[in-house]
């Protein structure tokens, strides 16, 4: 199972995860982290903790080296910098910025059906396609 961590400013990540689960049901291995009240060093340390966490003993694929996905709200912010410092050199962790609801729903939909590389590509594409000028122009 590919785990995913949504790291954002304020409560954006918690809400994205909550709403994803409201629509699709509980999603094991999908969690959120906020930078609120934390120094850069603290955020980096907490991401490293998540990285080596082995989530469920009954999951045969579970290991600290299993592929993982980090989703960020804003490239250049403290969440993104900490994510890069913690996992940027880890070939098993993909880091994507610009998280939106469509990406999380795509992640849940495809997680168990495509390989990791394709999953990352599809989540990025889904996120881009979700930005649509709907009207008023």
């Amino acid at each position, binding site marked *: 199972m590919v785990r995913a961590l949504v790291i954002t400013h304020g409560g954006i990540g918690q809400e994205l995860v909550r709403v994803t689960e409201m629509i699709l049901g509980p999603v094991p291995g999908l969690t959120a982290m906020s930078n609120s*009240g934390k120094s850069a060093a603290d955020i980096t340390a907490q991401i490293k903790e998540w990285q080596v966490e082995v989530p469920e003993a009954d999951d045969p694929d579970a290991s600290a080296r299993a592929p993982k996905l980090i989703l960020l709200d804003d*490239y*250049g912010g403290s969440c993104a*910098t900490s994510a890069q410092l913690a996992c940027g050199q880890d070939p098993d962790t993909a880091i994507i910025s610009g998280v939106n609801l469509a990406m999380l729903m795509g992640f849940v939909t495809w997680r168990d059906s495509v390989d990791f590389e394709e999953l990352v590509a599809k989540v990025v594409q889904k996120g881009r396609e979700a930005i649509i000028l709907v009207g008023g122009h």
Partner: protein
Amino acid sequence: MPVILARIDDRLIHGQVTVGWSERLRPDRILLANNAIAADPWQTKVYSSTVPPEIEVSILPVSKAASSLAAPERLDEQVLLLAGSVGEMAELVRIGVPVREVNVGGLHFGPGKREMLPFVYVDRQDLKAFVRLLEMGMSLSAQQVPGGREYLIDQEQIQEMGEKF
């Protein structure tokens, strides 16, 4: 070269700096004085990559910051100077970085730290370094972002805070 903002912020280069203050002040260069990051090419690369392309970035050990600011070829540059702790900013001022006012932008909670302001948590070392800054003639104010509330930090407040430990 003129330092247009000298900021203490334990998140170092992040949105409040690269967007918030930089949109307002339009610095030519962001200078981060940090020994650990300057010594690590990977961290230097990560932090440098977050700075918008129109702004130059230097990441230097604290001891090199003053001479870098005095470099004749960069006398006209407007610099946003960053340090990750009060102690490092006090050291920068001690070695001659041309600063009169220090902005306390964000010191987050950690072991042994107590709340001084909603975005400023300090320990005794930080308070001592605040006193050193005041003794060197700095004025201190805490403000996260342009237009945000500004809190002056004076000797009396530092003493009052010290009594809480």
